[in-house]
C-alpha cells in the first residue's frame, strides 16, 4: 500500500514539474516578496534552532524522551515549514508573479497531501502500532505532516478570501 502511495505521489510531483517546466515564462518574485521570504526564512530557521535547543535540554532532563527524539524533531521541522509558509502566505509572497493558483487548486493540493498523510497514519495504527503512554510514536510523523498541510490549507484559504475583499476595496477607494 505504502509503495503504491509513494509511486502515486512521485508521479504527481513529476507531472507538476513537467507542467511548470513547459511554461516558457520564468516565474519570479518581486523585491517586496523576496524580502518577505527572507524574513520568513530567518524566522523559521531561528525558531527551529531554539526548538532543537529546548528539546536537547528536555531530553537531558527526561531520558524517556530519547525514544521519541525523531518525532520531536519532526514536530520542529514541520512547525518551521508551517511558519515559513504562513509568513509567506500572509505577506503575499507565497506565489510567484506569474503563478496563478486558484483557491480550488490550493485546496486540492493541500487537502490531498494532508489527507494522504492522515490516511497513512491511520493505516499504521490499524496495523497494530500501539500508543504507549500516550506519547508520540514514529508513525505520528504522518499525522504531524497532515496537520502541517491542514494549517497551510487554512492559511491559504483565509488569505485568498481576505485578499479578494481587500483587492475590491482598494480599487474602489
Amino acid at each position, binding site marked *: 500500500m505504502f509503495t503504491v502511495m509513494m509511486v502515486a505521489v512521485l508521479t504527481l510531483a513529476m507531472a507538476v514539474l513537467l507542467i511548470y517546466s513547459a511554461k516558457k515564462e520564468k516565474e*519570479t518574485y*518581486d*523585491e*517586496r*516578496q523576496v524580502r518577505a521570504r527572507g524574513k520568513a526564512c530567518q524566522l523559521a530557521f531561528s525558531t527551529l534552532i531554539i526548538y532543537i535547543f529546548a528539546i536537547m535540554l528536555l531530553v537531558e532532563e527526561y531520558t524517556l524522551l530519547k525514544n521519541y527524539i525523531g518525532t520531536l524533531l519532526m514536530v520542529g521541522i514541520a512547525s518551521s515549514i508551517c511558519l515559513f509558509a504562513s509568513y509567506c502566505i500572509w505577506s*503575499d509572497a507565497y506565489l510567484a*508573479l506569474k503563478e496563478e493558483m486558484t483557491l480550488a487548486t490550493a485546496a486540492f493540493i493541500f487537502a490531498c497531501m494532508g489527507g494522504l498523510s492522515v490516511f497513512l497514519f491511520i493505516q499504521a495504527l490499524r496495523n497494530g502500532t500501539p500508543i504507549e503512554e500516550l506519547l508520540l510514536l514514529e508513525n505520528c510523523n504522518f499525522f504531524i505532516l497532515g496537520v502541517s498541510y491542514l494549517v497551510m490549507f487554512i492559511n491559504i484559504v483565509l488569505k485568498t478570501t481576505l*485578499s479578494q475583499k*481587500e*483587492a475590491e476595496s*482598494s*480599487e474602489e477607494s
Partner: protein
Amino acid sequence: MKNLKLKSARAAMDMTQQDLADRVNVSRQTINSIEKGDYNPTIKLCIAICRALDKTLDELFWEDESKASDISSMPKSAL
C-alpha cells in the same frame, strides 16, 4: 504615510493596481503596499513606476519641503 500622488497618477491614467503591477513586473499587493505607505520601494522600482506612469521621481515620490519639515519635527513614536 500614504502615497496619494502615486494613486492619483495611476487613476489619471485609468490604470488599476493590477495594470500597473503588470507593467512594472511586481505583484498587485506590492503596488497596494506602496500606495498605503506600508512598503518603501527601491529606487529601481520607483523608476520603473515613474516610467510606466510617465512621471518623474519628484512628482511621485518627493515630499514637499513643508511636509518634510513637519515629519522631521515629529517625535519618533508618531511616525
